[in-house]
């Protein structure tokens, strides 16, 4: 972790990322209002520092007079939770498939990898939008769709890693000692997979957050009244000329979150990859 000190960008990103996490977790305590509390008479008020702004509404209000700051804080919960849960499902499926395919090879490997090929042949976003349109918008559906459709990267990374690991002497030794397959996979192979999985997971969380935002923007993600960043950007489209803040602030939230997660992911990749480790 020494590299963190020599990498100020990563350090700042990490701090911002932690701050976003804390804000999401503590949203009910930090947010000044209830996210669903509307006040039509205060609709489309600009941010507090602009003329016409209400002092109590720092980032202004949306078309129904709901507090933008509150909704962005609550929106962070949805975005991050969807991102994390989707990645957890992807990891579970991907690691399972990758381990089995890489370890046994042969026909099993062939079947799994062809399934992966087929799935990768369909553009990810198109697949996700199609499935979301069929299943209907809901939080659980969004998580499941992203989770189940996104395992391929994990599967491939894990399989490649396993293919080289099974040649190692300690695996042969364990086999010679009569170690069962599942024991070798869980005790000897899995620990060696943690670093690459962590890197892939960090980088895909930001992708999942972006896709969740796209789905919500299209009205196929988590349905209203739950505040989502993508949904808020979509809501603000009609008001861009007269009330830019309704779209711009949640847009910034998506941008900053995805950026810092990617920067942290990059740093993690360097820190965990022995070949890139400096002197």
């Amino acid at each position, binding site marked *: 972790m020494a590299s963190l000190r020599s990498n100020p960008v990563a350090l700042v990103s990490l701090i911002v990322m932690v701050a976003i996490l804390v804000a999401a977790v503590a949203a009910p305590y930090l947010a000044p209002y209830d996210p*669903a*509390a*509307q006040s*039509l*008479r205060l*609709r*489309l008020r600009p941010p507090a520092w602009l003329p016409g702004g209400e002092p109590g509404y720092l980032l202004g209000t949306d*078309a*129904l*007079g*709901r507090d933008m700051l509150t909704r962005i804080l609550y929106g962070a919960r949805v975005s991050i939770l969807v991102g994390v849960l989707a990645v957890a499902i992807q990891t579970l499926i991907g690691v399972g498939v990758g381990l089995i395919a890489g370890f046994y090879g042969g026909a099993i490997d062939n079947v799994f990898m062809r399934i992966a090929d087929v799935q990768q042949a369909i553009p990810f976003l198109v697949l996700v939008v199609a499935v979301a349109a069929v299943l209907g918008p809901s939080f659980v559906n969004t998580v499941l769709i992203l989770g189940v459709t996104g395992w391929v990267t994990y599967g491939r990374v894990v399989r490649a890693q396993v293919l080289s690991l099974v040649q190692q002497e300690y695996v042969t030794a364990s086999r010679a000692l009569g170690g069962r397959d599942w024991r070798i996979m869980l005790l000897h192979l899995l620990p060696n997979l943690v670093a690459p999985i962590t890197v892939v997971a960090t980088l895909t969380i930001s992708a999942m957050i972006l896709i969740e935002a796209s789905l919500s923007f299209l*009205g196929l993600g988590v*349905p*209203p*009244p739950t505040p989502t960043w993508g949904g808020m950007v979509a809501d603000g*489209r*009609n*008001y*861009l*000329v*007269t009330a830019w803040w309704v779209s711009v602030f949640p847009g910034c939230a998506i941008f900053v979150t995805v950026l810092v997660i990617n920067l942290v992911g990059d740093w993690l990749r360097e820190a965990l990859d022995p070949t890139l480790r400096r002197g």
Partner: protein
Amino acid sequence: MEVLLNARRLFTASLVLISATFLGFAAAQAPEGRIVIAQGTDAASLDPQLQNDAFSTSILANVFDTLIYRNADLGLEPGLATSWELLDDTTWRVTLREGVTFHDGEPFSAEDVKFSLERPLAADFGSPLAGRFAIIAGVDIVDEFTVDVRTTSPYPLLPARLSEWFMLSKVYVEATDQATLSINPVGTGAYEFVEWVKDERLVLRANEGYWRGTPSILDVTFRPIPELSTRVAALQSGDVDLITNVPAFRQAEVDGNANLDVRTVPSTFFQYVALDGTKNPVLDDVRVRQAIQYATNVEEIVEFLFDGAAERIAVPLAFGTFGLDESIEPYPYDPERARELLAEAGYPDGIRFAMDAPVGRYAQDKETAEALVGQWSEVGIDVDLNINEWSVQLTKYRAGTELTDSHFMGWGTSTFDADDVFFGGFVNQPTKNNYENPELSELVLQARTSLDPAEREALYGEAQRILYEDVPWITLFQQVDIYGVRDDLDWQPRPDQKIEVFTISRTR
């Protein structure tokens, strides 16, 4: 309150004074130029008897004619029929215009009228208008240009109905398969159909032999643009010449543009939420339904979402409709009373139900639905809101069974008579909100067949009191339709949302 009073005055004044945009169809010179019209949604079908939504009708009114024409003052005048009279209680004699031809050259005659009025009656045809046509017992051809229309019971509204039913060509329809009919209409109207690329554009071209005279504008394109801001931007950039449903908060901006104008008209459309007690037993309790109405703050929505350009209604009837009892006061906004009623009904902790609402069809429809959900949540009424694209909402609505516990919709009357909503919404089409009330049905059916206006008015008065007490629909407001147009268009909007291009001309 002043805003409301002003809105009310505006409404009444406008309904009386909607000036006769004298139909500019007598233009002698050849049609020229082009107009692009952007509505919020595309046509559902181009078979006039397989659709019943205003935007489809708006397009079809340019391709087809009706026997009787409802003019901009909402009065009835001759269309494809030159005169009509009552022979006995259930028989109307209609004399047809001679020398009219369809776009394919076939002459229009009594055969076509008989065919057009009897076609939707076939049970297997599945017309969404079948309920309205059901009053037709049959059509007898007297001679080539005279028909007798028989109704199953005395039906004073027949002329009003004949003003909304388009006349099809018997020869063309019988020779053509249904798939083609739904995308390739042939009528007698001012414009001939050219092409339709679904969700992109629908093109029409002037019918130079139109019986009313050649239209002034040659080419017409209808473009569906669901997004408010995109629609306004398309008008501002000059891509389109006329847009529907300018949101109240953009009105000043559009009006301020030197090349653009805002034209408004009090709409015959009103908004409501239908509650279906058969899908969610909670909504079967009249106390619950009343509680929801008490928890609805329509004034707030009208004042802040619509900047006052809408009028609160008390019963499901638009102002200016025959039979409306204006003395009925809307439910006040009373969240306390709503909580009491919920508690009385056995739900002190609140209730939960689902609601379908469209986006892109009505002015600020999604915002209105979300505002309602927000208001109701304050008294413990939680709503799972499904925001549907209009085509989805319409499909669900037509099928009835696919709708959830409640749905947010608008109703535009075409006959300007209480019969339209009361019969169509509560008696004849129970699948849509599954409301059944024998007492109400009795009154509506009796009023439907009475030829005495005073008696009908009294019956509708009673029916309104039942609806007011029983609240099968949460009544909201009747809006003002706001159109954005290029300022060189000589055109005034109609209260029924039809855009008749043959009444439009350019001033430069």
